[in-house]
């Protein structure tokens, strides 16, 4: 698996604040990679180091095996993007394309604005743009030059639910249709779970967890059974079962579930409800960041 981005024992301090503390991570090529963490965890600092906006205090940051900081074909949007207020959306993309030596026709620019849902605002001055529109323009700007790697920091921040859904589909299509490696940071954990293939969780500048989303959430799932008598269920489950209000939470694999339910029915247990709970990234996130705080 080729790593497109690497952080090798990265440390970054801002005065007394340690934004990254011996942080190491490898982002593989392809798919959508999510970087999660509470506010101030170091996500934006990590992105800024990879983009050469910030120099690490210690450690190394590599982009495709080369030191970060040299202008190269990486699309990026860091936090809520801002633009020179006197430019229109079209002019903004034209200006940024010129800076990167990308030659675009007017039709190219309009097509890019249309793809992010800004076609009607193409000739409007960005001064009057909402945060959501700025985000869309930021994403269009990040994709100028068709980079193979795109870093997006909070791409859905300030968007309405429909916009978030649209952006999620757009990001997924970038990875699936265009083969772009997308690295994104977000606080919208449900969204991250839907759009990302792999995630890393940062807490207080350190890597708390990483892996495939499916693997991370798999171990967190519990089978919740509402059944009577409850004692019989707990007896069958042993240490793997705990009482939860009117039901029982069972720590079993999905493959084991049919056999468990069959065994319970054979023992005369009446099952009124059986469903999987807790298999979400939010639980993993809170566990990782909460555990770190408790520790």
């Amino acid at each position: 698996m080729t790593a497109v981005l690497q952080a090798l024992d990265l440390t970054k301090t801002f005065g007394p604040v340690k934004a990254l503390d011996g942080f190491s991570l490898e982002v593989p090529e392809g798919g959508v990679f999510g970087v999660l963490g509470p506010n101030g965890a170091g996500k934006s600092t990590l992105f800024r180091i990879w983009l050469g906006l910030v120099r690490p205090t210690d450690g190394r940051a590599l982009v495709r095996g080369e030191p970060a900081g040299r202008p190269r074909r990486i699309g990026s949007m860091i936090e809520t993007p801002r633009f020179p207020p006197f430019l229109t959306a079209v002019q903004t993309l034209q200006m940024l394309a010129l800076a990167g030596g990308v030659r675009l026709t007017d039709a190219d620019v309009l097509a890019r604005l249309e793809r992010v849902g800004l076609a009607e605002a193409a000739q409007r001055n960005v001064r009057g743009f909402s945060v959501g529109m700025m985000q869309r323009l930021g994403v269009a700007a990040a994709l100028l030059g068709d980079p193979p790697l795109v870093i997006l920091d909070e791409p859905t921040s300030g968007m309405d639910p429909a916009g978030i859904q649209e952006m999620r589909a757009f990001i997924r299509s970038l990875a699936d249709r265009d083969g772009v490696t997308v690295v994104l940071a977000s606080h919208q954990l449900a969204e991250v779970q839907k759009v990302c293939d792999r995630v890393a969780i940062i807490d207080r500048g350190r890597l708390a967890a990483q892996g495939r989303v499916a693997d991370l959430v798999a171990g967190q799932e519990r089978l919740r059974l509402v059944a009577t008598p409850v004692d019989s269920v707990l007896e069958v489950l042993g240490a793997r079962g705990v009482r939860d209000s009117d039901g029982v939470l069972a720590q079993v694999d999905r493959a084991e579930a049919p056999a468990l339910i069959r065994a319970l029915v054979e023992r005369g247990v009446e099952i009124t409800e059986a469903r999987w709970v807790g298999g979400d990234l939010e639980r993993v996130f809170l566990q990782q960041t909460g555990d770190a705080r408790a520790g």
Partner: protein
Amino acid sequence: MLADALACEGFKLWRNRAALFWGFLFVPLVALVIGVGVELWFRGAVARSHVIPALDLARVMLKAVADAGSPFTQLFLLIAGASVFGGEYRWETWRLLTPRNSRANLLAAKALVVAAAAAASVALIAFAGIAAGLIGAVGRHAPTVWNGGHDFGPQFAGLFLISWLQVLQPLAVGALAAVVSRSILAAVMTPIVLGVVQALMMSQLGPGDLATPPLWAFLALPGLAVELLRAGLGGAALPAATIWSATASLAGWVILPVVAAGVVFQRQDLSRE
């Protein structure tokens, strides 16, 4: 590439109409209006005295280009320069630009675009002065004469270069202030305060100091260098060493702050712009 950064900066400045007008066009317009006004007043005075002096076009051109780098011009150019050098910090747009081109190219492009616009502005101011003189001459039916002599061309070019460097000097200091402070206001105020201090220091120089300035004066007072170079072009007998020192002083005050800004910018964390 530098060409890409230049294209981007030029594109941006051309569309920043406020900076373009107030910074680079306002002073030429004012120069034209005031020049025509003075000429019209002069016309009235001439009508009363019944003497119509001839217009020496060469003298008018030399005076117009020599006056083009006035503090008034410098002030308005500073505003535009501050907008260019400090704009990315104010709009938080360095994060969009630095991943697309090298920092050295991006800052050099700003410096070159501002220098080119300042040259255009100085040329327009000179043109406005000449135009006002001609309009006045036509208005009072004055004959036009040419007493330029064989050295008019080099003299005109030299005065233009001095006026250009004169306006670039505070702009260069403003560029450094913008990068170090990340503030547009500092980019305007720092060169103004420095200029006032330098003017006060210059006023303390005695006649002897002006004839053979001490080293510290060359190092600290680019305004003195401007005066000496203009005097030299005007025919004053100055030692060659003085001319060279003045040239080095003025060039240094233009180049070194920009280089220093580049060094600071190259290592600057853009964790916030």
